[in-house]
């Protein structure tokens, strides 16, 4: 179960590039490729271990003019999908606290 105060960080060993609003992620050995839509790409770019899930939700509300409860539900669901695919990790501490 994802906690909204957890920090979100992209997994190491993944290469990614941005083409317009689309992020493309490729695994280190090139065997897996993922393509993210506009909102997913926005979340991905924010996932630098400096922001929490809550922070991401707030920024989505600002950027896409969407209500918080909808943004919260969709973001949690999407982050869980990225965790399940080993694309991002969640942590209790930000890298800024190290």
């Amino acid at each position, binding site marked *: 179960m994802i906690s909204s105060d957890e920090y979100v960080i992209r997994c190491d060993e993944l290469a990614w590039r941005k083409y317009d609003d689309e992020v493309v992620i490729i695994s280190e050995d090139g065997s897996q490729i993922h*393509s993210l839509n506009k909102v997913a790409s926005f979340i991905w770019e924010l996932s630098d271990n400096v922001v929490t899930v809550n922070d991401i939700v707030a920024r989505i509300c600002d950027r896409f003019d969407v209500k918080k409860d909808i943004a919260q539900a969709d973001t949690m669901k999407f982050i869980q999908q990225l965790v399940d695919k080993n694309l991002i990790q969640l942590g209790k501490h930000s890298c800024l606290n190290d």
Partner: protein
Amino acid sequence: MEKIVKRIERICTEKYIPFYAIFELTYRCNLYCRHCYAPKDQNGELSFGEIEPILDQLVKMGTFNLIFTGGEILTRKDFFDIAIASRSKGFFLILMTNGTLITANIADQIANLKPMGVEISLYGACAETHDFVTTVPGSFDCAVNAIRLLVDRGVSVVTKTVLMNSNFNERKEIEDLSNSLGAIPNINAGIIPRRDGSLLPLKHDLSFEDMENCFPEEIVSANFKQSADPAKRIPCKAGKAVCCISPEGDVSPCLLMPANLGSLREQTMAEIWYQQGNEFLNRLRTPEAYKSSPCANCDLLKFCVRCPGIAYIETGDPFEKSPNACHYAEWRHQIYSESNKA
């Protein structure tokens, strides 16, 4: 996965995003291959300190694939500094090398990079033939040793063979040798002029008779499945999804199209790649330009596998008729006509 890659390639071609960057790290080489197309002049290679910001620029622009070539890339003492920095920035690497400088230690370092592949030149199935082409005794043994060392470490190795009049009758043996070493053979015919326009390498090219002896008819006939639409016939990514950077930092549309678009010592990659008002680049990126080329209405179009880069080297114009392409198209036409008479 293939669908996503093809889609990204298409986006990059349409939006001129250099998905592939061919980075010539040096023109220095320890071999002197008879057919070599690369120039030999040295005017001051980019240092590692100059290369690293260029890599960052390529990341921002969307480049995923870096092809390191030369000269011989391992003559650079800082090669692994460059390669490690590239991997840390998420690039996928393909290394092109003659293999002669690959020891066990170097092979370990290459394996640690986890490159997408290493391409090693193999010009013969025996030392006599390979070393004749490279003009350096012992180069065959070193290349074969390099292939073994890398394959043993799990690196994907492709052997690259250009067939010429001195090695074409070993084609099958070269293929067998490559397979036996655990590599993938990539064997092609067709010597190209040197990038400075010199036609000297062409004296090593195959005659029509050599080609007929060398290639089974099914390979020849496969070349006839070409579209008659010139815009589709030349689906070249040069200047669109492909870019090339010389050892001195000059940017060109492709390795085989050395038209200088600008210097990375004076401008950023984005400034060069997206410059307005560069007639050459604009024309290269205009689909209609192909339709008005002399090749558009050629009777041999369906037999022609044309490289705009080679046309540029030969004539100064990527849209002009390429004597090299015409030569091979006439040969295929001849084969096709004879096989249809029978």
